[in-house]
């Protein structure tokens, strides 16, 4: 009964979406206030309906209702509760439902803040949102119904793919979807602006928080996905330039460009057409990512089921929204008024450079991801475009960004002084150079790592340089604290986010200083791993809730003293007859010791892969810092005008640090 209620609620949600897609838009075009004001209420109702449907599916999972095809195929009564709840989105149907749930959640948030917006803007935005949610609800109901029943309910389910039975499943997909779908907001705002023909600094102020929010979650989602792949796939790699990863990187790059571009538009009312274009682009790339990942065009752990019908449907949605918005863009964009003027050397100029490099880098990723697909479709030749391609194309385009970032922050709006900015940064540049020399002296190793480390230090220090110099100009300690407190949150946000890029770069540089060993170990054997000694104590079986586990108990020593125990293991899942590898991980300051054991019939000797990865955690701490920076900026905006109410001018709570790992 609950399941049928969920199914029915989903159909009602579609009906509401259709109403919401038409009525407010009509109202906004015919200037009918009553019709326009209907939008927020319908949007909220739509959210409630989808939430009921989602709740019903979750209930079916938690109670292991195997009369649902979806639950039967992807769940097991012995599965731990956390995977029953997160397993809802560990399959195609459920993940699409989560996609729509987040979409209508954003719609509901707009509806709640609609009072602070002009009526025609909120009506058009919600209307465009409803077009998107309607299309995806239709997709779910027609091709991927999660509520389909089985004729003869089986006693036991087939269990969730063991590789997905990991805490990462609870965090990575929702974060990523909040990011992907978050860009639907900027898209809706862009489309609404084109429909209403009004695009100005005020519009940019409404869009910016959404762009920030989406970007923040996408950053965390990508980082979390990377960390998950790092510890499950057993290669110690964290980024493979896999098409699925690229699919999430492309909207991130476009979104990052958009974020910087809205800053220009908000402050200076310039770059309007470009901002609108980026807003459309970011969401188009999100849709493309959904298509690539969900259609079965690519084979990966993310492609749950390949059903050509679904691929065609998503392709249709993709064509409709990208084509439609670009057509609207082509008709309306020439009517937009030219923005304010600025000199090539200025803050605006620096941000234009940022946009140019980011979008071009995004284009190279696009080519590298889609070229093999296009080539195969056209000529039948099968090729793989791997890391070397991206090292030759993406990396050279990204390097100038590291150097330009600190300089751009020091340029004034309208007309900047490049020489002055460079002079002010001399000390920071020297510090970076010094750091590179120190890294080289301490670690030896590849010169490239030392150079990258130096650039990273330059970026980190350069990000805080402006704030630091403004604080340092205070006369006394108290005055300095007052200055630091008085600095706008967004300034701190920028500094943190930029420094996060440097932190990630430092983590990447440090990969050159790592140690990798492959060893055949018997109980009692030791392996030297950099400054550590790893000893295999014993190999023993251990039972788990829905798997059996072979655990290698290992002791890590440094100069004879025991540092810690680690337990890399292999898990065998009987329900799907497959094995997964659990890496043994030990955090030592910012580095990690990483051990995996291989799958084998005989117990000993045990084939083992051991890594010492200094500073590797920085790779994921960087995105965390970027997200914290984004959150800081967001709280600033909220106080000034933002998404919630502006009437009460009290200090909001400090942004909670968002867990990424």
């Amino acid at each position, binding site marked *: 009964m609950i399941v049928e209620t969920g199914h029915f609620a989903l159909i009602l949600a579609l009906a509401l979406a259709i109403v919401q897609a038409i009525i407010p838009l009509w109202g906004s075009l015919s200037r009918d206030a009553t019709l326009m004001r209907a939008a927020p209420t319908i949007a909220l109702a739509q959210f409630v309906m989808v939430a009921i449907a989602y709740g019903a599916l979750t209930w079916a999972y938690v109670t292991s209702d195997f009369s649902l095809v979806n639950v039967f195929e992807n769940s097991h009564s012995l599965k731990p509760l956390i995977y029953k709840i997160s397993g809802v989105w560990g399959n195609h149907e459920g993940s699409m439902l989560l996609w729509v749930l987040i979409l209508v959640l954003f719609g509901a948030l707009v509806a709640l803040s609609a009072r602070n917006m002009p009526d025609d803007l909120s009506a058009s935005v919600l209307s465009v949102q409803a077009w998107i949610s309607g299309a995806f609800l239709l997709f779910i109901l027609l091709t991927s119904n999660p509520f389909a029943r089985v004729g003869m309910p089986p006693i036991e389910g087939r269990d969730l793919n063991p590789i997905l039975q990991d805490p990462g499943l609870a965090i990575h997909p929702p974060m990523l979807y909040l990011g992907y779908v978050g860009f639907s907001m900027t898209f809706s705002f862009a489309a609404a602006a084109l429909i209403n023909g009004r695009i100005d600094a005020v519009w940019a102020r409404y869009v910016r928080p959404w762009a920030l929010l989406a970007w923040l979650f996408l950053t965390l989602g990508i980082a979390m996905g990377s960390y998950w792949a790092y510890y499950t796939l*057993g290669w110690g790699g964290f980024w493979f330039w896999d098409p699925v990863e690229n699919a999430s990187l492309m909207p991130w790059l476009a979104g990052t460009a958009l974020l910087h571009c809205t800053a220009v538009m908000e402050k200076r009312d310039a770059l309007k057409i470009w901002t609108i274009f980026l807003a459309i682009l970011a969401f188009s790339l999100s849709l493309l990512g959904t298509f690539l990942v969900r259609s079965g065009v690519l084979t990966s752990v993310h492609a749950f089921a390949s059903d050509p019908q679904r691929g065609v449907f998503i392709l249709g949605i993709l064509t409709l929204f990208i084509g439609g918005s670009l057509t609207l863009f082509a008709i309306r964009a020439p009517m937009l008024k030219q923005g304010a003027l600025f000199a090539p050397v200025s803050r605006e100029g620096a941000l234009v450079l940022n946009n140019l490099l980011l979008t071009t880098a995004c284009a190279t990723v696009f080519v590298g991801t889609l070229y093999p697909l296009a080539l195969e479709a056209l000529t039948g030749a*099968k090729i793989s*475009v*791997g890391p070397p*391609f991206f090292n030759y194309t993406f990396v050279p385009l990204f390097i100038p960004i590291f150097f330009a970032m600190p300089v751009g922050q020091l340029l004034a709006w309208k007309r900047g002084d490049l020489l002055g900015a460079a002079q002010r940064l001399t000390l920071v540049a020297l510090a970076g150079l010094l750091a590179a020399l120190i890294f080289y002296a301490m670690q030896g190793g590849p010169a490239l790592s030392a150079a990258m480390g130096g650039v990273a230090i330059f970026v980190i220090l350069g990000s805080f340089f402006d704030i630091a110099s403004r604080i340092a100009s205070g006369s006394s300690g108290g005055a300095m604290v007052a200055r630091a407190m008085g600095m706008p949150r967004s300034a701190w946000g920028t500094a943190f986010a930029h420094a996060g890029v440097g932190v990630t770069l430092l983590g990447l540089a440090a990969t050159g200083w790592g140690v990798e060993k*492959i060893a055949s170990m018997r109980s009692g054997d030791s392996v030297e791993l950099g400054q550590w000694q790893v000893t295999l104590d014993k190999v023993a079986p251990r039972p788990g809730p829905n798997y059996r586990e072979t655990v290698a108990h290992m002791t890590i020593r440094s100069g004879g003293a025991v540092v810690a125990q680690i337990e890399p293991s292999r898990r065998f899942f009987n329900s799907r007859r497959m094995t997964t590898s659990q890496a043994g991980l030990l955090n030592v300051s910012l580095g990690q010791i990483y051990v995996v054991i291989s*799958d084998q019939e005989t117990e000993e000797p045990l084939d083992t892969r051991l890594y010492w990865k200094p500073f590797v955690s920085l790779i994921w701490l960087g995105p965390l810092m970027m997200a914290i920076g984004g959150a800081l900026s967001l709280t600033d905006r909220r106080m000034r005008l933002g998404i919630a109410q502006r009437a009460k001018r009290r200090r909001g709570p400090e942004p909670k640090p968002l867990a990424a790992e």
Partner: protein
Amino acid sequence: MTRKSRRLVLISSALAVLAFAAGLVLFALRDTIVFFYTPSDIDAKHVAPGTRLRLGGLVKEGSVVKAEGKAITFAVRDANGEIRVSYTGLLPDLFREGQGVVAEGVFEGKGQFRADSVLAKHDETYMPRDLAESLKKQGLWQHNQPGAPEARGK
């Protein structure tokens, strides 16, 4: 600066970056892409020794030899051909005789291949699509073999 000359600076710098990127892409596409072949493709297309490629096929039964250290050799076969692969390192999970495998490395001529990576499969039902298609074409596809996406059920 007039509006016109500013726009000129903007457009020309944009074009410069784009041209640079296009150059990089073309260069990289010529040098870094890797073709996917099965053993019989290598014979049929007369692949020159020293070419980097991805080799896909089935691991021939009884062909896996573990030598001293981490050196391993095995044969990859399809319906009409066989290539001997040498590889140093740990084999990925689910590497089994008689099952699908994709190795990336250098073709050394005379049926020899030196792999620097052997593709890790995400799970037992995952088989690289290229490989699955080639096997299907050659009639080596067994419906119930782990690796058949269909085996996953609907």
